[in-house]
């Protein structure tokens, strides 16, 4: 089915090549510039052409997206990387991640919860339907879970809204809910009768049933 069997690698190493280590470190180092957020970064990865995306290793996806972000924000161009040397003065980052800052930055992470004065529209047990929406822009409502009926299981707090934040439209926090669906609601005939699937959905992904 689909992409074939999962092939777990026994005793898998953390990295499969030296460049993967550098790719991880470069991605995190450039994230520290403060020029883009995690949502814009995810969107850059999603926008890699599908055939390339599906045949690339995950760190290759990271590097391709990183090059897009560096170019978009004026730090480095693909032409420079092709040539292997700097050709123009870069934009000024908010910070450069030096070795002494690494432990603190990793330990702090990037919390995405934000206070919200409004009260949640939904409560556990409410029946909801996810919206049917197919934007060209970033969204975190997976395609398989659009226009499906489910039940609110938990109110998880209020979080930055990626659909806006990915495109420079601000954080616009919303309530996030865990919504549970029966396998049959999502997959229809022949679905595993013991299957329940949940997503974490921002409030504007949901309509009361």
């Amino acid at each position, binding site marked *: 089915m689909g*992409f074939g069997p999962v092939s777990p690698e026994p005793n898998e190493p953390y990295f499969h090549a030296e*460049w993967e280590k550098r790719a991880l*470190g470069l991605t995190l180092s*450039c994230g520290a510039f403060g020029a883009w957020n995690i949502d814009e970064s995810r969107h850059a990865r999603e926008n890699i052409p599908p055939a390339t995306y599906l045949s690339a290793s995950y760190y290759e996806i990271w590097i391709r997206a990183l090059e897009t972000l560096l170019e978009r924000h004026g730090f*480095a161009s693909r032409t420079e990387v092709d040539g292997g040397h700097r050709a123009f003065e870069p934009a000024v980052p908010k910070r450069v991640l030096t070795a002494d800052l690494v432990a603190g930055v990793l330990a702090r992470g990037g919390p995405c919860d934000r206070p919200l004065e409004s009260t949640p529209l939904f409560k556990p047990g409410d029946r909801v339907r996810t919206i049917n929406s197919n934007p060209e822009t970033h969204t975190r409502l997976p395609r*398989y879970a659009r226009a499906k009926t489910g039940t609110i299981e938990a109110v998880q707090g209020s979080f930055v809204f990626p659909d806006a934040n990915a495109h420079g439209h601000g954080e616009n926090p919303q309530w*996030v809910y865990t919504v549970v669906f029966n396998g049959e609601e999502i997959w229809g005939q022949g679905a595993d009768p013991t*299957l329940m699937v949940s997503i974490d959905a921002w409030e504007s992904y949901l309509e009361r049933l």
Partner: protein
Amino acid sequence: MEHHHDDHDHHGHHHDNRYSDMQARVRALETVLSEKGLIDPAAIDAIVETYETKIGPRNGARVVAKAWSDPEFRAWLAADATAAIASLGFTGRQGEHMRAVFNTPETHNLVVCTLCSCYPWAVLGLPPVWYKAPAYRSRAVIDPRGVLAEFGLVLAEEKKIRIWDSTAELRYLVIPERPAGTEGMNEETLSTLVSRDAMIGTALAGAAT
């Protein structure tokens, strides 16, 4: 991929060889960014060292072992996983908003990120390749029993399966069932029974030996 000048490849057949291609590409990117003063190569070393030696599945295994041994901690983990896990010193990047989900005799939990590769780095470290690859990401939500069988895990037919698709910023840690015959074991010994896969849901906790 576009042509670039790869004078580091001595094998002469590098154009469809993703490994050597990426090796050169990432090296060039690191050079350009270093020349521009945007990155500190020593920071990259520090990031890699952190995820090779400090942050990995042993962290999560300690959480699980404590949850098995200490009912108060288990209750705290269920109510506020982020705080309970932070009390053991595990915080930060991709562990900012934690949720613990508990396997029971009735229900088996399995975690996936169908949209990208969201994963609880603070407790499990870097995700394995299969977790980030299309086969797992697409099939875990529709054919979890088939996926689990590829890991050698066959669940009873009547067991309910709950898939947690990490579509928002919550990161899920599966707390497997405590194996039989482990009464009286201390937390350190118990933690050796907990594999990374058991905390994703693609395995059970190991049997006592």
